[in-house]
């Protein structure tokens, strides 16, 4: 448990990371929050073996590193002001990922479970909207595609 000390204003307990390291373990979330928090919610996004009906073999995530770090911090900072959360720990993986590996992990602690669900959902949706990270999907048939981008041909 992180003790919040005796500050009159509660400290902002937000930790974010853009990393090439594995996010598969749950160790980072074992001690999230304080005795003020009656609920913890941990979301993991993982590499699925199918997407849009195609068999995926692996993924690479590319990030605009400095901006992604700034945006992820901004998203979680905003979440901590919008919702009455205790702690937030949000991490996004970049680089090459195998099937089943965790690409994004978001842990929230809060006094009440409603807040956990709302904040967790809000953060993952904001990540999908504005975090400058791109997913290059590799398929079993040898093809690959930048997810969400139109197929543009160089003329």
């Amino acid at each position: 448990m992180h003790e919040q000390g005796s500050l009159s204003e509660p400290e902002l307990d937000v930790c974010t990371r853009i990393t090439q390291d594995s996010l598969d373990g749950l160790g980072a979330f074992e001690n999230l929050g304080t005795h003020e928090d009656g609920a913890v919610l941990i979301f993991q996004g993982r590499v699925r073996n199918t997407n849009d009906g195609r068999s995926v073999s692996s993924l690479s995530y590319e990030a605009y590193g400095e901006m992604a770090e700034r945006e992820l911090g901004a998203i979680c900072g905003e979440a901590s002001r919008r919702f009455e959360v205790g702690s937030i720990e949000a991490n996004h993986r970049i680089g090459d990922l195998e099937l089943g590996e965790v690409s994004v992990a978001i842990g929230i602690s809060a006094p009440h479970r409603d807040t956990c669900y709302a904040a967790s959902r809000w953060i993952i949706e904001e990540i999908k909207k504005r975090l400058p990270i791109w997913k290059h999907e590799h398929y079993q048939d040898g093809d690959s595609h930048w997810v969400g981008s139109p197929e543009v041909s160089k003329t």
Partner: protein
Amino acid sequence: MTEVISVRTLFFGIYGELSQYKSPGYLELPSESTVEDFLDEMRGAAGCDWLPERVVVAVNQRYAEMETLLNDGDEVALIPPVAGG
């Protein structure tokens, strides 16, 4: 005040792939140029005619508007549809 500014250009995702052979790492623009002027120059003189009509742009790691003014030394990134998560 300088007559010309130089901005650093960054391409990511599909734009990175499309730009890898002939896109500039820096672009010179008249001072007082906006993001919109930058995009016009990229699509024309800089040869990035594959850029779609609407492009999201970040200036110095923050999302910018078409009217955002550019300064000498700015980092201007072309942001294709993001797909994190």
